[in-house]
């Protein structure tokens, strides 16, 4: 810490005086590092040589009591507090206000309880997902939650954003796995919720609250025995209509696959290597030299880079050309769990889908599984190359799914290259995961284009009766559409925050509150 007296060092000294046990830093490198999460807008700002907002200090609490100390201090001095997990959020939910306290929770990584008999574990909210999974695997269990950010996201972050893992169709979203929460309110009160009917209700208020009502310090969650069997299937469909109909029949026939992923024709084409293996190249592929799309990789890296740049600069042309070539859609299925159940489901899926499409065997599914974390947890090279890439995950009921898909495509037409896959599938509907990208001549134009594409996409979703977010959360990015989404509930949540947090110190501005 610098010996020079600054506003930051003054706050740090006062916080240390309030609780000498806290680890605190006002070092510029820490304040810069915690000025960001994985919202691509930050990268666009970097292109404009803007380093963003700096918090006053970072604090690393190791217990709920220390978290409470921070909140009490912040309330007394009217300083905003932003809880921070892995920083993997893509909507700005962990971006602090200038002069705020960032509370990095990764030291809350204790395993409080693991009950094989009851199939539950109580863990500190700061556990990094992959570390937790390794720990549970050693005991013969799995957390059942596998976001593509699993290597850099925390249990608390999963809760705060109502996250979904890649196998959510079997294991549920994180709120389905949550059984109780230790919560610290903005006034410093510590409370356990989840053992009573009322407590279970309040857990629903904590999930998705993104730090505006306080923060979780421990989570009791369901754990599952490691699966006995894991089986793969892959199918190709001539049209999206047939593909979506096949998915719906599958989900409404008593099956519960672990993974269901349908790639639209352009996404199927761009990762044609998926038919042999590999994750979606999409436009999120790492153009700095990572796994490029198989069909283009053969043309050489030099040619690929230029083709990619042309495509991104002329998205309307590129989309039209791509969709002229792209014809079929790829569906990947994975069944896991008890041997007999998985085997029955895989066999039954063969029977159900045979009248809709053409079987491609196990290979594409197996290869997706082996490469499922390859892309998403690292920032795309496209951002450092001067363009932008982002994803928008929305959801619709079956009866409006294709309408929503087409509405978003129409709204973004010519504004960005747009791919989509359908995943996180339910009996009642599905999530659509759009990936979009573009590049403009200068950084300012990039940001304008980025914001415009988001506006077009979200407005199309609202008009089509979908939800603006299925599992990434809201943060700052989607805040302006929250009133449309929640109707009267948005005002109620605003009142609830004002009542629980009258000084408005708890991660202000997120969720549009």
């Amino acid at each position: 810490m610098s010996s020079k007296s600054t506003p930051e060092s003054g706050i740090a000294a006062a916080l240390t005086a309030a609780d000498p046990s806290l680890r605190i830093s006002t070092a510029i490198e820490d304040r810069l590092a915690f000025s960001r999460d994985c919202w691509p807008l930050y990268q666009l700002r970097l292109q404009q040589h803007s380093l963003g907002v700096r918090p006053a200090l970072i604090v690393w609490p190791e217990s709920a009591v220390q978290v409470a100390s921070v909140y009490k201090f912040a309330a007394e001095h009217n300083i905003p507090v932003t809880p921070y997990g892995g920083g993997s959020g893509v909507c700005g939910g962990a971006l602090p206000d200038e002069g705020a306290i960032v509370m990095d929770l990764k030291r809350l990584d204790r395993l409080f309880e693991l009950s094989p008999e009851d199939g539950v574990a109580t863990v500190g909210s700061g556990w990094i997902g992959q570390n937790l999974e390794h720990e549970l695997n050693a005991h013969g269990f799995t957390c059942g939650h596998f976001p593509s950010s699993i290597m850099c996201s925390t249990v608390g972050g999963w809760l705060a954003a109502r996250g979904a893992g890649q196998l959510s169709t079997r294991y549920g979203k994180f709120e389905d796995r949550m059984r109780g929460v230790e919560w610290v309110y903005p006034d410093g009160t510590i409370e356990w919720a989840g053992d009573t009917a009322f407590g279970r209700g309040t857990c629903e208020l904590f999930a998705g609250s993104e730090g505006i009502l306080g923060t979780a310090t421990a989570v009791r969650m369901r754990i599952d025995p490691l699966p006995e069997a894991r089986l793969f299937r892959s199918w190709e469909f001539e049209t999206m209509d047939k593909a979506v109909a096949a998915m719906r029949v599958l989900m409404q026939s008593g099956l519960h696959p672990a993974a269901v992923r349908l790639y639209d024709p352009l996404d199927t084409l761009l990762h044609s290597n998926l038919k042999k293996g590999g994750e979606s190249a999409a436009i999120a592929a790492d153009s700095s030299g990572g796994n490029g799309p198989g069909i283009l990789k053969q043309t050489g890296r030099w040619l690929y880079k230029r083709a990619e740049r042309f495509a991104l600069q002329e998205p309307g042309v590129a989309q039209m050309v791509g969709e002229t070539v792209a014809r079929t859609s790829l569906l990947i299925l994975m069944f896991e769990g008890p041997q007999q159940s998985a085997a029955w489901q895989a066999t039954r899926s063969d029977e159900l889908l045979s009248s809709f499409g053409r079987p491609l065997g196990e290979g594409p599914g197996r290869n997706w599984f082996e490469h499922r974390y390859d892309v998403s947890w690292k920032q795309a090279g496209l951002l450092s190359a001067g363009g932008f890439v982002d994803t928008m995950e929305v959801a619709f009921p079956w009866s409006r799914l294709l309408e929503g898909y087409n509405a978003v495509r129409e709204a973004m037409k010519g504004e960005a290259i747009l791919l989509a896959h359908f995943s996180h599938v339910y009996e009642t509907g599905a999530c659509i995961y759009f990936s979009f990208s573009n590049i403009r001549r200068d950084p300012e134009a990039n940001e304008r284009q980025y914001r415009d594409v988001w506006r077009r996409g979200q407005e199309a979703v609202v008009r089509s009766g979908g939800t603006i977010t299925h599992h990434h959360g809201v943060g700052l990015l989607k805040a302006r559409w929250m009133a449309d989404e929640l109707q009267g509930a948005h005002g109620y949540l605003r009142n609830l925050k004002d009542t629980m947090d009258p000084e408005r110190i708890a991660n202000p501005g997120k969720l549009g509150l």
Partner: protein
Amino acid sequence: MSIDLDKLMQQLPVMADHCLDLADAGPDDGWWTHRGPVLPVVARPQLSQELEELFEYAVQNRIVLAPIGDGTSRFIGQMDAGRTVLLVQPGYTSLWHGPNEEDRTAWFPAGVSVADAETLLNNAGFTMSPWPEDHGTLGGNWVHPRGSFGCREFRHAAARRTGAQALLGTGEWVRSNDTPRSAAGPNLLAAMSGCGPAIGLVTQVQLLIRPLGELAVMRGQTDDLAGLCQRLQALVRDDYLPTSCTVWKGEGKSWNVMWRQNVWHDWAERTLQQAAGTLALQELDQDTQLPELAGGDSIFVPWSKVAEAAKRKRGIHFCGPTPEGLVAIGQPAEPIPGHWGDWLEGASERGVLPTAGAL
């Protein structure tokens, strides 16, 4: 402050006469009069507009609105003779437009009983797989989930209860948009499950429905509760999920288990066979009288605590099973913690909904 019935009638011109009763008649089953003070007015709103007007009247006159369905919960709240209007959940069936077969969902008025809703669905070839003993309303089951609403076949509670419409304590409406799931902030409608009427008045609910297959009901008996729990847990972990399952104390040391299966696909048939073998189930005699489920809260009981809970409370009923344990029905009501009462009252602003006292 007492309610001026004439004034109320004048200020609610939309509301038909039959919507307001003098409370000495009480609800039809006389339930309330056994449990609390005599209330001056019982309102039975038929339309959203009537509910809104009643709400505004309550705001102006500092009256508390307390919703009631079939009166099977143990909600007490802030009711007192002078300030409370007992608000009967809207139970009209004009809102029933049939199931949405493509989305496998159906919307119901909150005041429709579980049995009536199931009949409507059965006539259309679907089922919501209700608990056979569930006798509350759908709205009541939303705010006090129990019995079939904890049914394991639906894998997650949220999978079963797909949406709702409610008039919030702020006087504003909220209605789910039919999407399967969302991450747009806290799920206020789901939070009402367990918070009673403190957040809002549920007027419609949307449920996941399944095709109606052949309904099989089997029953078994054992003196070994621990062994029964182990076998139930093994079945569930192997994906053999009942449509509903009840465990209750029988004569002497015996425990009864009833397994219901909606056999609408091949795995359900296999599940029934597996359960029958594992639990030594017999087909249920049509004349067998089943116990009535107790009212009140449902409490989750982990497998490791089931034996202790069974010893602690006589006449306990369990339902489930879930991978982590059973759900005990008919537990004492839990009060809203004082600080939460204050927060919810502050959030509602208007002071119309009961936010303190026992749920």
